[in-house]
């Protein structure tokens, strides 16, 4: 059953897929990598709405990427559906174990404990010579049963996959945020004990949110691995996880589209900071971050409301 909004979304998705055929390749590449990260951030937003900030989403980002890498190496397949499924499975399995422990934690302890787990994965990978240690290894680019159209100097398949996944997951999470379980997140952030009094198991709600976030993160990792063609343990390092939090706060948690768009804007910003000022790009990023926090406390997404208000008056 298609209502007006889903119809517009569908048209937008198809339009973006078609635009991919004409946009310069560096841009579709950037968008693909950004959407990979955007999915991780979307997962992070699920947690953040419940008041939990994970500094360890790199764990699943990296696990998804390595699942793709290992599977394409050892099973020797480049089937994009199979690879994505394996990555999601990896995220699901790891998070359903780790989540049992982590769902008991809150605040900074949740953040640090999740970081500890991702740093342990980092350590294990750095110690694994057969997986290339800190250098990592290359991953062949994927195809859909041999179908991988080249456009403007590179395979466009990953871009399409990223767009489709972004829309599918975006729609699912959008529905989820409106469901009782989704709304429970905000209630938990406000007051956990009252939620318990209402007969809802806070731990269970958080456990499920944690797993959802993990699956999104490992999907994002898989997209990155397939697009970049190279994976390394850096993906599990705390700075990578920190970057996700950075994007989430920059974008805002107001809407499912915010993290996805925010990721694209962040990648563009960084890429141009690199180009304009190779020696002091960190300073540009830092100043931008502070400016957003000061002038747009609810993230870039709050610009939308301001714009809409401006349009109405």
């Amino acid at each position, binding site marked *: 059953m298609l209502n007006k909004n889903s119809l517009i979304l569908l048209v937008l998705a198809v339009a973006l897929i078609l635009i991919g055929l004409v946009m310069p390749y560096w841009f579709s590449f950037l968008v693909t990598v950004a959407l990979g990260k955007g999915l991780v951030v979307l997962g992070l937003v699920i947690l953040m709405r419940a008041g939990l900030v994970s500094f360890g989403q790199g764990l699943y980002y990296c696990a998804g990427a390595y699942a793709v890498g290992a599977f394409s190496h050892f099973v020797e397949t480049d089937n994009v559906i199979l690879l994505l499924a394996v990555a999601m499975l990896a995220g699901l399995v790891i998070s359903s174990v780790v989540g049992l422990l982590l769902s008991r934690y809150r605040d900074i302890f949740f953040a640090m404990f999740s970081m500890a787990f991702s740093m*342990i994965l980092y*350590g294990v990978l750095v110690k694994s010579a057969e997986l290339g240690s800190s250098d990592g290894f290359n991953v062949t680019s994927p195809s859909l049963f041999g179908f991988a159209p080249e456009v403007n100097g590179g395979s466009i398949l990953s871009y399409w996959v990223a767009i489709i996944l972004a829309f599918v997951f975006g729609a699912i999470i959008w529905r989820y945020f409106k469901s009782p379980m989704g709304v429970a997140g905000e209630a938990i952030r406000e007051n956990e004990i009252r939620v318990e009094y209402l007969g809802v198991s806070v731990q269970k709600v958080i456990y499920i949110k944690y797993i959802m976030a993990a699956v999104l993160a490992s999907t994002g990792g898989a997209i990155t691995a397939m697009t970049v063609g190279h994976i390394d343990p850096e993906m599990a390092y705390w700075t990578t996880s920190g970057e996700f939090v950075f994007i989430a*706060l920059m974008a805002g948690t107001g809407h499912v589209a915010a993290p996805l768009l925010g990721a694209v804007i962040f990648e563009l910003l960084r890429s141009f900071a690199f180009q304009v000022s190779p020696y002091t790009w*960190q*300073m540009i990023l830092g100043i931008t*971050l*502070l400016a957003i926090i*000061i002038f747009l406390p609810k993230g870039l997404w709050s610009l939308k409301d301001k714009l809409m208000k401006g349009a109405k008056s």
Partner: protein
Amino acid sequence: MNLALAVLVDGVVYSSWLFLIAAGLTLIYGVMKILNMAHGSFYAIGAYSGASLIGVYFAGGNPPWASYLLLIGVAMVAGLIVGLLIERGFLRFMYGRDEVVMILVTYGILLILEDTIKLLWGVDPYFAYQPYTLLGRTKISSLSFANYDFMLIAVTAVVAFILWWSLNRTKAGKILQSVIHDREIAGALGVNVTKIFTITFVIGAFLGAFAGAMTAPGISVVPGIGIEVIILAFAVVVIGGLGSVGGAFVGALIVGLSRALSVHLYPDGELFVIYGVMGLVLAFRPQGLFAIASARKI
């Protein structure tokens, strides 16, 4: 025998270094509830100012013993300037924001400071090894240790004592503790919370810069050293319980000794040990070892 001795001394030396770094971080968190990512930059600024001034100082042929005082002086000035600039010029406009947002704010400051340091000092290494080698070494059994490291232990002990004493035995310290326990009530009772915040932040910045200045003689001061210590300091502080100075002390000891043990008995594990310890402690004490009790929201 040798092994036990080595583990003990190495562990305690490393612990005292960790505590010096973590003390300012935990103090700022305790009072202001800001997990200050820029603490690593304070450390780097202290190290850079110390190393560059020591270099000039020895090039001028001045009496070597006074260089230790110089290190302390440098840290004080650097901490005061940077601390005041950041707190007065920036942070005070952000109070009341979410804790996570404050982490991001300090992360932004860290990014800016990292490049500022690069613009001021360049990327070439700075050395200030004279104070480090000046004190000579001591042979215990068949092992030699640098006397500077023993001095570091003593300095850390003094810093820890001063912190404990001024927090628990002075009026200012009691006022500070009241702010730690409940900012609003303390404010209602007439405590000038804003002033306390400024002072705490400057002391925290000084402690960070001091750790850097004390470390500088034994290392090569290069870009990125600040980033490397942040996570170490975070781990120590989380193990000990956020905001607790005593907890940071114990946390530093646990991490330092386990790392030394791992280096001597299982070198491959060095990479994991700190996270392993952190995971283990958090698994059994979800709030860290000496967490400050917080009221339940009902």
